């Protein structure tokens, strides 16, 4: 046993796959110990940007005004401020006006905000009539100029409060352009590493708990499928005769009927109310055992007439002992590899099922497939909200990649012909 383990962990592929998989499993276990927020708690109300908030650090504006400011004199602060407010469309519009005004094109650089603004302020005259410019266009430039002056002002902003009795504005303080707050002093700062999803829920804890649920579904389904496959394969292969015929009858039928179709039919017939994660896992397990059964049976048939098994039979050992002592050890590695593959296909099956709207019904935790489904329903891919679907695909791909890599590694250990 120790020897086998050593051999397995010498395979580079297995070790890489195992490390990725363990990293995911450990994250799922450890993350909730530090972050106690409920995974499906709604934290954002729909705003102008919608419920999909992009990833980033969110600083409370109200609190940051209340915190005592520091004065930092940074050279590029003004330029950055203006640059962030000047849209690309405005820049090209400015360039158009300046060109029409007779400024040579090589002097205008729309990417350099400072020089562009200097050119604009020194040349623009609202009353100047350029040839060929419509009145509407002129008005557009007058509006643009007014808004640019707002950007260029260096005055302090006054913070005012509506008086509760008088209803008039009362100045409470002012914010100068050189004021800074230290984020660590602001009481309310929230890091949304992966933004929020279509319902305004923090994606990070949601993703971690969904990964946990999906791994659980994979494990339960994989164990069920492998156990059924193992038992039927052993029975058919070792006992033979009528038992084998019955096993092969069902195996042949379920090999040809697409398991995905069965999965859809069974999940549908269970009904939405009773479809929990465990139920879905059981259904997946019961619809994917056949190829394990087929493979185990083939291996058992080849083992059945080996000398050591015959010897065991002649010694009068009971069937259970023969199976446990003389057959199982020979197929254990294969069964373990089958289990790994079953887990990986079960996780994919759950995801596909959820996209069809037949996934588990949960209220406290999501599954990877459900997160995918929500992202698709709310059109995250076409709207460019990558954080609502890409992390899910990456996690699914990583889980199945690591499991497949472990499988390939094991295959090379146990199949000397495949070694390099």
């Amino acid at each position: 046993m120790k020897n086998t383990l050593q051999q397995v962990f010498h395979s580079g592929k297995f070790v890489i796959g195992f490390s990725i998989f363990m990293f995911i499993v450990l994250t799922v276990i450890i993350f909730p110990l530090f972050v106690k927020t409920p995974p499906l708690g709604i934290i954002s109300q729909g705003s102008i940007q919608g419920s999909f908030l992009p990833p980033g650090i969110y600083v409370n504006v109200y609190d940051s005004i209340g915190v005592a400011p520091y004065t930092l004199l940074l050279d590029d602060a003004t330029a950055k401020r203006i640059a962030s407010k000047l849209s690309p469309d405005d820049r090209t519009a400015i360039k158009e006006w300046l060109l029409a005004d007779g400024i040579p094109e090589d002097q205008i650089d729309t990417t350099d905000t400072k020089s562009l603004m200097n050119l604009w302020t020194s040349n623009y005259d609202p009353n100047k009539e350029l040839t060929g410019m419509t009145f509407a266009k002129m008005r557009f430039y007058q509006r643009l100029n007014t808004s640019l002056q707002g950007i260029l002002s260096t005055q302090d902003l006054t913070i005012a409060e509506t008086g509760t009795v008088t209803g008039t504005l009362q100045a409470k303080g002012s914010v100068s352009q050189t004021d800074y707050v230290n984020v660590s002093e602001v009481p309310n700062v929230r890091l949304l590493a992966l933004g929020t999803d279509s319902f305004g829920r923090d994606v990070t804890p949601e993703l971690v708990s969904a990964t946990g649920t999906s791994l659980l579904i994979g494990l339960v389904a994989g164990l069920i499928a492998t156990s059924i496959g193992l038992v039927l394969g052993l029975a058919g292969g070792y006992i033979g005769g009528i038992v084998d015929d019955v096993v092969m009858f069902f195996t042949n039928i379920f090999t040809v009927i697409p398991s995905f179709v069965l999965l859809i039919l069974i999940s549908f017939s269970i009904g939405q109310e009773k479809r929990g994660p465990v139920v879905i896992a059981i259904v997946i397990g019961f619809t994917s055992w056949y190829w394990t059964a087929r493979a185990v049976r083939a291996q058992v048939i080849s083992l059945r007439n080996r000398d050591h098994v015959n010897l065991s039979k002649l010694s009068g050992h009971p069937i259970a002992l023969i199976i446990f002592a003389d057959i199982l050890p020979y197929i254990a590695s294969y069964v373990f590899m089958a289990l790994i593959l079953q887990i990986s296909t079960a996780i994919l099956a759950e995801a596909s099922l959820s996209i069809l709207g037949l996934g588990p019904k949960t209220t406290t935790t999501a599954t990877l497939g459900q997160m995918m489904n929500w992202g698709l329903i709310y059109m995250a891919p076409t709207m460019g909200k990558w954080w609502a679907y890409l992390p899910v695909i990456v996690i699914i791909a990583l889980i199945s990649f690591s499991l497949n890599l472990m499988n390939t590694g094991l295959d090379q250990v146990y199949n000397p012909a495949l070694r390099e």
Partner: protein
Amino acid sequence: MKGYTRYFGTKLAWFAVTFVVAFLLNFFLPRMMPGDPVAAIVARMAQGQSNASGVQAIYKQYTELFGTNKPMIEQFFIYVKNVFHGDFGFSFSQYPRTVSDVLKNSIWWTVCLQLPAIIVGFLIGNILGVLAAYLKGGYDKALMPISIFVSGLPAFGMAIILLVIFGVTFRLFPTSGGYGFDLIPNLSWGFVWSVIIHYQLPFWSIVLIAIGGWAIGMRSMSIYELNADYVKYSRFMGIKDWKIILYVFRNAMLPQITGLALAIGTMVGGALVAEIIFSYPGLGTTLLSAIKGQDYPMISAATLIITIMVLIANFALEILYGFIDPRIKAAQAD
């Protein structure tokens, strides 16, 4: 030839039995769903009606129309009789359209998308696999991890990645539908072109997913074959490399074809979900809307058709296998 008749006879008998089991499951499973879908339709139809006996009358009329007032066994025999006439009854969610009317169109979209995609993916994957086994070195080292990664990706994941890269970011291909939404199906050049560009993303997402798995399998098979005596013998004879690869390819393909027969059901399932991502007007999208509408006649029929398609594909592969596997050929010749 007499031997072959026997071989195909047994295969055909197996598929007949499988078909009956699949048919039974297709009929009974969706109908075991809790809740009454007819009541849901009636509630939709009779919205705003306060007359209880009126609603009752509508309900009665609908249960008679859909045949849900009869016992299950009787419904089953009526269903069997109708199915053999190509009649799957009314669709619950798209009433008054019939199920066969809805499915008639979507079947062809699915067949024309998936059949070429699965075959192309199978061929490309196998060629890459045999090359990896033969060339070894850097090519093998690069191809294998990529193949393992890609084959682990779900079909919908690949579909979304292609959609975002080529459809949304670069706007090279349309992101949804089977043809332009402003077109009416006809045989004009404009329509055909629209179908072709809408075809690309779903097609390649299915092909790319398939390549990885077949490449891995083919590589293992080819490594076994490359160690076989006939390869060494051929080398001693000075036969050209590409000719040896061809021999190896032909021999390693045999188990791969069995693999295709086993995997085709799973592949079709994955491809159906990929269809949904692109709102491709095939069976996958139809199935999704049927599930949303609790439309079990539609679910029964759609899954039955998918099952039959997989059965036919399987049977075709078995026949092909019977002809190309020399062992079966020899056994049948006696």
